[in-house]
């Protein structure tokens, strides 16, 4: 009852013309930065921050939250159309989404992503509204050993992403190795930097993903760009059958995304990986994945949107950041003289509920904006490939350069782009390498933090219940296929 009353007050606040405008501006800006590799929602919010000084804090937070979840929609666009994931959380989308685009189903992929995102965004906002305090307590239960075990579970996905288990594992381990380059968080000392200042921060996610997906795709297709037929655009919106196929992945993705998103520091990226693997494991015919399976778009896309709302849970209920972007929104709250903390829900109820209400409105805006746009953007693929490739390469270079104004990053892009071409040529999967790079530092640091905590004993990973359960899940994920094979073989005898 009281939740409904609170939400009604919130809606009244969110539906004022000015706040609606801020919400629209936020989701539009979010959509835009999400589509551009290099500039992400955190940078966009930081750049807009000085402009909002002196404005009403509620409107500003509505704007920032809009940028945050709007970016999750925007990231889909480039992943599907040109195989350049703009955000870590859209890497999984580009695997099957781009294949769908090549088959002339870009509109369907974008459409299902928009619908899935809308459903996930709305469901997880309801979750945020009803479950924020208990969920926030759950997030606090995650210490270093729990993060370690969660990442172990995520890493079991390495083998499942590509076609060949061995190649998937090898690429994943290479990604893990790449993540050790740069300043070590536990000691502050540089590793594998070879006295190069530009290697102190290691290999950036954006550099690797744009190189392995974007540049490699352009290079490997360049040879046949002139002969390659222009994709026929079959239909723009998902058919009844496609919708039926995507329904459950959307719901599962929403749940996974929301729960994983709540955990500070992991968020949307792990959520999208887990959702993809779940869909692949549950599919009747897993071999369709990687070749344009619509579930491979619906699951991760729903899950990364749900994660964005999930990440707001620790921020609003506890005053701790759930992701890099929410950390900046927290900073903004402080700038406005609002102290984020466990009492935000009570002391600033009007602000919190207005922002939550605006998230419902923002998701509607995004759906209305994206469904017609899906068809429009899909038309981009009518452009002959020989014309399309040079601007894509330019976008890759500009995106990578713009994130840190660093020319060395561009050279790394060239190097990894060449590697990506070779990997594509010899059918090595790129996603596990990116997964390894993204998860590597949490993997290593949470392990070393746990070992510090336990004074060097490995027991800490199994004596803490949440950690033990996560490790057991990882073990099942690895063993289940083998056991199933053995079972089937025995049944045949």
């Amino acid at each position: 009852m009281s939740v409904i009353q609170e939400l009604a007050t919130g809606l009244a606040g969110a539906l004022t013309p000015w706040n609606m405008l801020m919400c629209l501006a936020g989701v539009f800006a979010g959509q835009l930065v999400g589509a551009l590799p290099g500039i992400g929602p955190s940078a966009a919010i930081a750049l807009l921050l000085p402009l909002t000084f002196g404005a009403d804090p509620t409107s500003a937070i509505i704007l920032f939250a809009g940028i945050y979840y709007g970016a999750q929609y925007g990231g889909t666009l480039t992943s599907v159309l040109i195989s350049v994931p703009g955000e870590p959380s859209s890497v999984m989308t580009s695997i099957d989404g781009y294949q769908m685009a090549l088959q002339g189903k870009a509109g369907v992929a974008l459409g299902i992503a928009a619908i899935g995102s809308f459903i996930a965004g709305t469901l997880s906002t309801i979750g945020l509204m009803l479950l924020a305090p208990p969920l926030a307590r759950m997030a606090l239960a995650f210490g270093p050993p729990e993060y370690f075990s969660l990442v172990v579970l995520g890493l079991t996905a390495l083998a499942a992403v590509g076609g060949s288990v061995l190649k998937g594992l090898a690429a994943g381990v290479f990604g893990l190795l790449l993540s050790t380059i740069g300043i070590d968080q536990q000691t502050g000392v540089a590793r594998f930097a070879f006295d190069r200042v530009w290697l102190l921060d290691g290999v950036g996610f954006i550099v690797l993903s744009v190189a392995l997906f974007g540049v490699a795709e352009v290079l490997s297709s360049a040879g046949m760009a002139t002969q390659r037929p222009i994709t026929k655009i079959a239909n723009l919106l998902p058919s009844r059958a496609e919708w039926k196929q995507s329904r459950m992945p959307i719901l599962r993705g929403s749940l996974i995304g929301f729960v994983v998103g709540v955990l500070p520091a992991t968020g949307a990226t792990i959520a999208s990986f887990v959702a993809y693997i779940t869909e692949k494991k549950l599919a009747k015919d897993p071999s369709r994945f990687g070749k344009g399976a619509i579930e491979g778009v619906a699951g991760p896309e729903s899950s990364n949107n749900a994660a964005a709302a999930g990440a707001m849970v620790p921020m609003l209920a506890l005053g701790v950041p759930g992701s890099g972007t929410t950390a900046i929104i927290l900073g903004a709250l402080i700038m406005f003289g609002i102290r984020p903390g466990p009492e935000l829900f009570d002391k600033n109820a009007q602000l919190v509920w207005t922002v939550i209400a605006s998230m419902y409105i923002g998701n509607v805006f995004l759906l209305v904006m994206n469904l017609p746009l899906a068809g429009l953007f899909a038309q981009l693929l009518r452009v002959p490939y020989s014309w399309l490739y040079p601007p894509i390469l330019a976008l890759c270079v500009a995106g990578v350069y713009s994130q840190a104004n660093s020319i060395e990053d561009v050279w790394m892009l060239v190097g990894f782009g060449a590697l990506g071409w070779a990997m594509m040529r010899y059918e090595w999967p790129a996603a596990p390498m990116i997964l390894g790079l993204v998860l590597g530092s949490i993997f290593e640091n949470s392990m070393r933090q746990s070992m510090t905590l336990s004074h060097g004993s490995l027991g800490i990973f199994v004596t803490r219940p949440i950690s033990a359960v996560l490790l057991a899940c990882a073990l099942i994920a690895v063993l289940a296929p083998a056991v199933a094979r053995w079972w089937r073989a025995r049944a045949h005898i």
Partner: protein
Amino acid sequence: MLLTRRSLLLAASAAPVAATFGGAHAQAGWQPTREVEFVVPFGVGGGADLLARVIHKIIVEDKLVPVPIALNNRPGGGGATGIGYVSARKAADPHTIILVNGTTQITPILNPAAKTLSEVRPVMNVMLDDFLLFVRGDAPWKDAKAFVADAKTKPPKSLAFATGGTTDVMAITIFSKATGVEYNALNFNSGGEALTQLLGGHVQACMGNPLEFMGHLQSKAVRALGVFREQRFTALPDVPTMKEQGIQTPAFQMWRGMATPKGTPDAPAKYWEGVFAKVVAAPAFKAYIAENIASEAPIPGDAFVKFLADQEKLYRDLLGKPA
């Protein structure tokens, strides 16, 4: 005309701090003639970047310089990338100003290949950030003395700290040296993550800046046991200093200041010193300091260079890396 008005304004606004600056405005012989580049060697959105944006906003809105001024974020390598860019492209260029902080000073101590403060001319420190010892609100210790007494009854490294970076680790080292107790330190990416670990009960304490902990301090979710400061905060009068509690630690605060490229002549350096003095005196800056529970600390020119030399000695000592 412009020049006269500027010096007048300068004299007026610098008056309250004139004693500290000892005629910083006397040599207004140089002024920028083309666009000034404001290099921030840190990423968009971090604490250092926000300070840079506040300084930039004050310079632009109060028209402290007669030319446009553009921010340029060059993040990476703990400040080394941005300063490397300055020394490669902007050597001795008085039309470049750079934000520097404690992190830029720590980077080359840990990674000698990275060059930072040796490549700039420090012009003025603007503020200091404090470190507090925090525990959970329901923890048994009411002050730092009780915390240390309890730690002494346990085996070494029984109490664990979560930290948000090297500066927090140094605060733990100071505390550990002063109390003769070894603590466990778990390093995280940010103060926010460290706070989450403290709230979750995975560690027993945190060393951190007031800003990130303020909301939780007010709601009593965390308790501050002491601060590495000479006097108590005016904003937090209930938090005792370490010295008051008989814990003999040096005052430990993290500095943030402004610099120009190495080899900048004296006249432009003095000019910028005057500009930054006005920034520090601006109401918008004072509001920023109050929001961050930080300390305003204008230390100009040569005094800043000496301050930095002392800090360097302290940092090297704490990190176990003598020069």
